[in-house]
C-alpha cells in the first residue's frame, strides 16, 4: 500500500498488494509488495470525509430562492452520479437547482454561494469524466 493512503481501513481493498510483472506498451511494470516510493498527501480527514456509504446530506437549510431555470435544464441531482453524491462537496438542499441557478447562487458568495460552487465542481467533474468515454 502507499504510505499516506486515505481511509485504509474503511472497506475492502479491491486491488491487493499482489506481486505481478506485466508488459505494457512502453515497458515492464513491477507491482510489488514493497512500499511504493510515491508519497502523496492524504486527503480524507475527519472534517472532510463522509465515507460511510451514504450520500452526503449537507446542510438542510433552505437555500434562498433563485430565478427560474432555463427550459429543459436538468437539476443538479440528475447531473451528479450517485457516487459523487458521497462527496463532502455535495449538498442535497441544492440538488434540485439547475446549473444556471447554481451559477447565480455561486456569484452571490457567502456560505450558500460556496456550496453552490462546490456543486458546480461536481457537475463539471462528471462532465469531464463522461467526455473520456467519447475519445478513441
Amino acid at each position, binding site marked *: 500500500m502507499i504510505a499516506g493512503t486515505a481511509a485504509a481501513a474503511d472497506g475492502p481493498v479491491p486491488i491487493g498488494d499482489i506481486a505481478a510483472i506485466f508488459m505494457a506498451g512502453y515497458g515492464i511494470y513491477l507491482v510489488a509488495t514493497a512500499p511504493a516510493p510515491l508519497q502523496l498527501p492524504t486527503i480524507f480527514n475527519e472534517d472532510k470525509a463522509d465515507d460511510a456509504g451514504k450520500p452526503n446530506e449537507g446542510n438542510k437549510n433552505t437555500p434562498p430562492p433563485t430565478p427560474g431555470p432555463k427550459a429543459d435544464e436538468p437539476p443538479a441531482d440528475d447531473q451528479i452520479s450517485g457516487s459523487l453524491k458521497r462527496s463532502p462537496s455535495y449538498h442535497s438542499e441544492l440538488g434540485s437547482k439547475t446549473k444556471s441557478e447554481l451559477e447565480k447562487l455561486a456569484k452571490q458568495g457567502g456560505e450558500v454561494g460556496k456550496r453552490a460552487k462546490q456543486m458546480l465542481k461536481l457537475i463539471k*467533474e462528471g462532465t469531464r469524466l463522461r467526455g473520456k468515454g467519447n475519445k478513441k
Partner: protein
Amino acid sequence: MSHLDKVKSLYRSEKFKEAISFLEQSESECLLHPAVLVWKARCLQLADDISPYQLSDIEKLLKQALSVDSEYLPAIVDLAYFYLNVLDDSKQAAPLFREAINLHKEAFTEAVIGMAECLAEESSKEEALKFLANTETSALDANKLQEVKEELLGLP
C-alpha cells in the same frame, strides 16, 4: 478487443457497474496496468451504486496507479481533478497539475521536434518550420481555453 478496449466500450455505454465487474475480473488475473486502475477509478466516480466501494477507494486506485508508474499522466491528472472538483481542495490539486504540465511539456516538445525533423527529411525545411509555427499556436484546445477564460471573467 483488448481488456481496456472492452472497458472503454462499456464506459461509453455508461454501463459503469458492468465495467467495474469486468475490471475486477482483470484484477484477479493480475492485469494491473495503471490504465486499468485509472479506468476503474473513473467508473467508480460515475456509477450510481458503487457498493462495496467507498469514495476513498477512488483516491486509493489513482495512487496505486502512480505507485506502478509515477509519471502516468492520466492518473496524475485524474487525481488532481479528484482533489479539485470532488474534494474541493485546490491546494492538494495544484502540485499535481504542475507536475502533469511539466511531464506533458517534455513529452510534447520531444514529439513536436521529432515531427519537425521528419517533415524536414521527407518534405522540406519550410514545411518543418511551418509545422513548428502552427504547433505553437494550436497545441492546446483553443475552444476549451476560451470557455475557461469566459468563466473566469464572469467571476465576481
